[in-house]
């Protein structure tokens, strides 16, 4: 095995990190959705302190990656945007956690 290949293998846990989840705002969004069945846009906005535009942009990226499911419906004539973590999103979040754990566990003191 060449030294370059070995070096790449050493950094494997870092290169495996999901960049979509790694962004702090998206990580926060996924962490909140991970612990609930579903939540709406306003709840996430309040909890994450993100602006409407910022949150919707991150949600669109997560939806495009298939990590969250966005459902729009009317409740008593008021529109409500419900967000739910998909199975794929849940799995990706768990893998991300594991990868981050591996990265920091393998670092020397």
């Amino acid at each position, binding site marked *: 095995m060449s030294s370059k290949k070995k070096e790449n293998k050493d950094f494997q846990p870092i290169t495996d990190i999901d960049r979509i989840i790694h962004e702090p705002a998206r*990580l926060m969004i996924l*962490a*909140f959705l*991970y*612990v*609930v*069945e*579903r*939540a*709406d*846009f*306003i*709840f*996430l*906005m*309040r*909890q994450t302190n993100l602006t*409407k*535009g910022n*949150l*919707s*942009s991150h*949600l*669109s990226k997560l939806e495009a990656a298939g990590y969250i499911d*966005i459902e*729009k419906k009317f*409740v*008593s004539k*008021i*529109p*409500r*945007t*419900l967000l739910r973590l998909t199975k794929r999103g849940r799995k990706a979040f768990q893998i991300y*956690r594991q990868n*981050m*754990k591996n*990265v*920091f566990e393998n670092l020397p003191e």
Partner: protein
Amino acid sequence: MEQSINIEEVKRKTYRAIQQDGLDKILLGILFGLCSLIYVSMVWIAVVACSPVLAQFAREIIRKKLTYNRIGYVEFSKSLDKKETLFTLLTVTIFLSLLVIVNRTGFKALLPLLVVIIPSGIYFMITHYRSRAKIDYMITILFLLSGVIGLFFTLHGYDTTTVLVVQISGLGVVLLTIGIVQFIRFLRKYPKQTVEASNVFKEKRK
């Protein structure tokens, strides 16, 4: 990084967020008030029997009108996890043991302690595993304290029914007061949201 993504803490934060409206405490306070009426007149038993279901309905209606449009809507998993199930079983076991003791020995002085076992056990379970809010721990202590104080009075010859009425209605008043204070603070802290997210999404997609 792992330490900063403390999933349990996120879960608690989320649960505490929706509990800020104090509605559960208000409704529990009213429920306690109604329960104390049973000891005054048995006519109230039907109302008390229906009240938990009515309380759930009322909570959802009020939340739809006042809470969800301020803080947003969130839905938690309805099933209990292992620890919560075990704790509930432990509480029910303690309650049933005390109930058997009271029935067998006819020692009615234990009743003030008996009536707070289930509420304090369940309240502690919810507090400890879901919210860890200081105020909720204090309410659990208050439940048990009311039982001990009630026991003290019944042991000193006071009429058990009177002690129970004072104890339960007192707990109801305290819970109601805490709930109303939390509710007012919640309304002030979170003004009503006027713009909905769907508009933002529409604009983005254009």
